[in-house]
């Protein structure tokens, strides 16, 4: 008999808990009208960053990102000028192959490549996922990034003495490639990260890219 009373009590308890949620506000957002404000570090599309003033690409074709990509999604086409210095001709990223791991972003010492917090780039054909230099640069135009203070390369002493640590970050994040340049320091106040409630971007019609 006691088991029966227990059973009824717990069944009612279950009803109560679900009933309790009836009054609460829904927490889902209606996607096309409201968009989820992605945190500043979230890794979306691969983009090439360019200098704000001169509009020139930061990339110095050092091929480090191409080597560090686990799925060989990056292909850099370059030709050498007379002094043997590489001139960047084309920078191809196949977003079909890319696994958005961010290893290229970490391998780059010149803040030339960054995974922007954008995700709306689905296409109907696989070939459209292969992006070339023009598109990568155009999408990367409005992506904020940390400009690195680079001393003149020849003035650098032979031993790669770590550059003076900038005071902006309380705990500097060193890069894996031995140099102590701070690329993406822990400071993330470039874009205010969304508080608990998703910041609702106003009526945004999907960007017009192809």
């Amino acid at each position, binding site marked *: 008999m006691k088991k029966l009373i227990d059973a009824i009590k717990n*069944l009612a308890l*279950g*009803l109560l*808990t*679900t*009933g309790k*949620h*009836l009054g*609460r*506000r*829904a*927490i*889902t957002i*209606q996607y096309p009208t409201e968009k989820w404000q992605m945190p500043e570090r979230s890794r979306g599309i691969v983009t090439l960053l360019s200098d704000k003033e001169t509009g020139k690409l930061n990339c110095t074709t050092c091929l480090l990102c191409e080597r560090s990509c686990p799925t060989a999604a990056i292909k850099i086409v370059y030709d050498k000028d007379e002094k043997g210095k590489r001139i960047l001709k084309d920078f191809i990223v196949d977003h079909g192959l890319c696994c958005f791991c961010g290893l290229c972003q970490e391998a780059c010492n010149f803040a030339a490549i960054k995974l922007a917090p954008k995700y709306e780039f689905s296409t109907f054909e696989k070939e459209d996922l292969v992006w070339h230099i023009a598109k990568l640069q155009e999408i990367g135009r409005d992506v904020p990034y940390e400009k690195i203070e680079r001393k003149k390369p020849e003035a650098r002493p032979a031993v790669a003495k770590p550059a003076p640590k900038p005071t902006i970050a309380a705990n500097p994040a060193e890069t894996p490639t031995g140099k102590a340049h701070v690329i993406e320091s822990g400071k993330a106040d470039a874009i205010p990260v969304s508080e608990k409630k998703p910041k609702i971007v106003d009526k945004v019609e999907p960007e017009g890219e192809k």
Partner: protein
Amino acid sequence: MEIAGIFKYLYEMLAKSGLPQLAVDLIALVASALIVFTFLAVTALFLVWWERKVSAHIQQRFGPMRTGWHGWLQTIVDMIKLIQKEDITPATADRPVFFWAPIIALTAAFTAYVVMPFGKGLIVSDLNIGILFIIAITTFTIISLLMAGWGSNNKYALLGGMRSAAQVVSYEVPMVVAVLSVVLFAGSMSMMDIVNSQAKIYQWYIFRLPFGPIAFMIYLIAGTAESNRTPFDLPEAEQELVAGFNVEYSGMKFAMFFFAEFVNLFTISAIAATLFLGGWQGPFLPSWMWFMIKTLFIVFVLMWFRWTYPRLRVDQLMEFSWKFLLPISFANLIIAGFMKYSRWFNW
């Protein structure tokens, strides 16, 4: 403002118009059937939408929002989609059985409303064997489930069909006994008499301790099992049998099954409201509005069950019905008998 008056007036107008008595009756019956059919179609559509909204808000999400304000057009859009979908009949299916199954399901679901008292005078025909007629008709759904299971020649459908037949049969018995205890008290099986015997609020059968609430609970549990809803929704247990008996159905036939399921849900709660909560009895609102309020409240409780409880296994389900629900309903019937013929409880 009583709608029954309008129908009575229309009927006199028709009778005076000089048509032979047979034609008059025929037109009246066909008209009332059409009215009940459209009323039920609209309520079924509303129930589908309402279930999706209730389940959404229980789970802290919005539910359909895009078709019209808060998605009220959603069910109509679904219906149109289902109607224009291709209606596939499996090659090795048993063609006539496969074809007639949804039609029987739908007709069984609708004919139960012949004796349903929607309001004071609002009843299609007040048979004196009202409740017995409803129970007899609702058992037709078993045949349609079996036909669907067998007709679609698919292992999963067969398993689903067998399970649902066993389940509906075994939950029919306690349901009938629970209804019997109410009929015993009301003294007659006609739905109007049952409702009239619950004139005052303390006369509602749910408040007639000790047999009332027990009979109500038994009826509600057997009702959920009857309409194949969680925690007894074995026949189309997605996780085990993919989709149970309606796995091979698509397009219009699937829409019929889906429609029949929600009309069944409305029938179960309408009977529960009529038998235990005093049908259309109520202080100042018009009678049909009371009927709707009580029925929709019970529909809400059934939906609440669905979005809270897990599912029972087949043998546990059978065991629960035969070994637990049936003995209690018999005991309840005996108590009701004593109460009926004792001096104190007979108010």
